[in-house]
């Protein structure tokens, strides 16, 4: 394995960490710059994580608010992106727990699955008659991939999203998820093996949606 610790000076050289230090000194413009730099990335990851666009935006807003409120205690011990996604992961975990508790009460009589969302196949069946074939094929691929992603546990999913969309190294993912690099290696190995099992039929046959 490669080195398992983040380089200490990396945080000090991180331009976003410098912006955050300016925000800590009361520079609102610097903080607004951070919001605009990270909002799309954050909302994107959170949307795939919680599978609810509006909830993702609300969570992202909460993340920025939390960071701003904690600005006086900010110390650049890691890259700013690591710091931001660690807070995002914690808030998303809290939300999942809250939603889980509420669902225990409201699930009776609902047609939701254990994860709350209806199966991709059901949604596709409802929408397939309303769009051109090419567009439908693309949406079908997205639904199948999203469905495969939703079968991963929350840590696996976050690790996959950070690695795929944020191009984070194992070291940074470990710092974000507050775990070891070795644990991240196992997480990603299992996650990608699960994705392979789910998606391989679609890759080899090239016929989207033909599998249950």
């Amino acid at each position, binding site marked *: 394995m490669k080195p398992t610790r983040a380089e200490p000076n990396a945080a000090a050289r991180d331009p976003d960490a410098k912006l955050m230090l300016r925000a800590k000194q009361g520079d609102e413009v610097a903080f607004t710059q951070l919001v605009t730099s990270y909002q799309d990335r954050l*909302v994107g990851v959170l949307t795939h994580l919680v599978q609810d666009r509006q909830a993702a935006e609300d969570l992202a807003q909460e993340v920025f608010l939390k960071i701003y409120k904690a600005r006086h205690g900010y110390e650049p011990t890691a890259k700013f992106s690591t710091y931001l996604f660690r807070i995002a992961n914690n808030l998303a975990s809290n939300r999942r727990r809250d939603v889980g508790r509420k669902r225990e009460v409201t699930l009776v009589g609902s047609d939701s699955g254990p994860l709350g969302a209806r199966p991709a196949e059901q949604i596709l069946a409802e929408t397939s008659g309303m769009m051109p074939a090419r567009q439908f094929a693309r949406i079908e691929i997205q639904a199948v*991939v999203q469905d495969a992603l939703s079968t991963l546990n929350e840590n696996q999913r976050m690790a996959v999203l950070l690695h*795929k969309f944020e191009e984070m190294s194992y070291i940074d993912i470990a710092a974000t998820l507050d775990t070891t690099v070795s644990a991240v*290696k196992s997480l990603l190995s299992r996650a990608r093996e699960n994705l392979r099992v789910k998606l391989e039929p679609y890759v080899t046959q090239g016929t989207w949606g033909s599998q249950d």
Partner: protein
Amino acid sequence: MAKISRLSGEQRENLVAYLDGELDETSAKEIEQALASSPVARHDVDMLSRTWDLLGQLPTSPAGEEFTSRTVSSIRAAEKPKARVDDAAVSRAIRRTLGLAIAVLVLLGAGTAGFLGTNRWIPNEADEILNDYEVISELDKYLEAGDIDYLSKLQEHREFSEHDEPNAP
């Protein structure tokens, strides 16, 4: 021909790390040797790679147009009420203390005025007796005389004066 089953558990775990470029040189060479001798392992790596690429098909979900302004506004809103609450709390505390002090002063004033008022302006039984003491002390004489005009006329005559009586011839 080597089969995938010949890969150790650690090697299987390392396949993904190998694809991600996260293995050190020694472990990477070990995986390359295993891949070179196992078509099943090569197939697995190929599938891991192609299914991973499928994630790129997921729709992007940028933040809404109003996200930045909403977020900055919510941050300002979250900060301002705190300041307002602090100022308001201080103002309320000052007003409350002043009000309490004024109420105490009013009560003390009212109490003092009430005490003085009742003692000075509302006569009690003893005051009445003291005021009428001169009459009361001579009441027997007044009752014997029976008429105040008669007593007045007697006093006008020197012969009946009390002071002159011991010297009278």
